[in-house]
């Protein structure tokens, strides 16, 4: 069995030997694969996969493949590439020259709405509306600097926003500056911005 780690366009990028990667080419696409192993899944296993993808990402645009995507052999990989050529080529075009940047926004406990229970039903709904508005404001402001964006379902508690942005490689600096400006303008919020990540949230349209 072999495991598919990432898909990129031809020609194959130079592969680091330490990661035991090999390239399978078909239909103008390249799948980067490793032999499948049975080691238990731990955070460090996932981090080493992440490191490998990030090294590759410096050399080419790629689509990260879900951990644990295994097929029988190279011929099976080539079949997958040929069968899904259109979809994969389109996704690669979408992420070309861009990286994923993640943003989470929390409201701190100092805000009155989280320390005191709402006095009435109207207050309760009003605080919900305010939270939704803050999330939309931040998401739209950052979305303007991104090629695409996606927002995850609202989490309970003080988390107002959890979103991912597909940002041009050269625009990551100005994106982060905008995050810092928003943080300055909204001291009651806490903005966390991480990346650059492989485009995990943008592999399908």
């Amino acid at each position: 069995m072999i495991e598919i780690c990432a898909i990129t366009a031809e020609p194959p990028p130079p592969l680091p030997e330490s990661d035991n990667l090999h390239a399978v080419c078909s239909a103008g696409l390249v799948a980067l694969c490793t032999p499948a192993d049975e080691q238990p899944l731990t955070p460090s296993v996932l981090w080493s996969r992440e490191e490998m993808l990030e090294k590759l990402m410096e050399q080419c645009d790629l689509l990260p493949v879900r951990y644990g995507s295994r097929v029988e052999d190279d011929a099976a990989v080539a079949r997958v590439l040929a069968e899904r050529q259109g979809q994969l080529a389109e996704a690669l075009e979408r992420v070309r020259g861009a990286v994923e940047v993640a943003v989470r926004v929390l409201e701190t406990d100092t805000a009155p709405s989280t320390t005191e229970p709402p006095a009435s039903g109207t207050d309760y709904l009003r605080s919900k509306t305010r939270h939704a508005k803050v999330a939309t404001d931040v998401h739209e402001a950052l979305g303007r600097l991104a090629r695409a964006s996606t927002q995850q379902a609202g989490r309970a508690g003080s988390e107002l926003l959890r979103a991912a942005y597909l940002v041009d490689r050269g625009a990551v600096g100005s994106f982060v500056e905008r995050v810092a400006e928003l943080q300055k303008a909204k001291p009651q919020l806490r903005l966390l911005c991480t990346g650059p990540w492989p485009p995990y949230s943008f592999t399908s349209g």
Partner: protein
Amino acid sequence: MRDKFLHKPPDLDLFASDLPRVEDALPGRVNADPERLERGLAQLVLTVVELLRQLMERQALRRIDGGTLSEDQVERLGQTFMELDKRMEQLRTEFGLTEEDINLHLGPLGRLL
């Protein structure tokens, strides 16, 4: 591993509430202990109820934004959702579940909220 923080607040710990959940997710095995199964079933049911609650709440907020509800109606709706929220919290406590436990990633469905 490179530092992945592009911008971080000084009180970064606020964001760490997710970490135990990540660790819990990794073993990925079903535990067939009957007590845990009951908790698992409660988790599943409460997750669905919470999803519906959030959807209805979202719908109510849209109607309020639309300005078609009277003050009385808004107050009554608010009271109902506040009560539902409290009741969900009681049920979660009863089954030893956290807010995160009943907040599954629902894939594309998650984006409805």
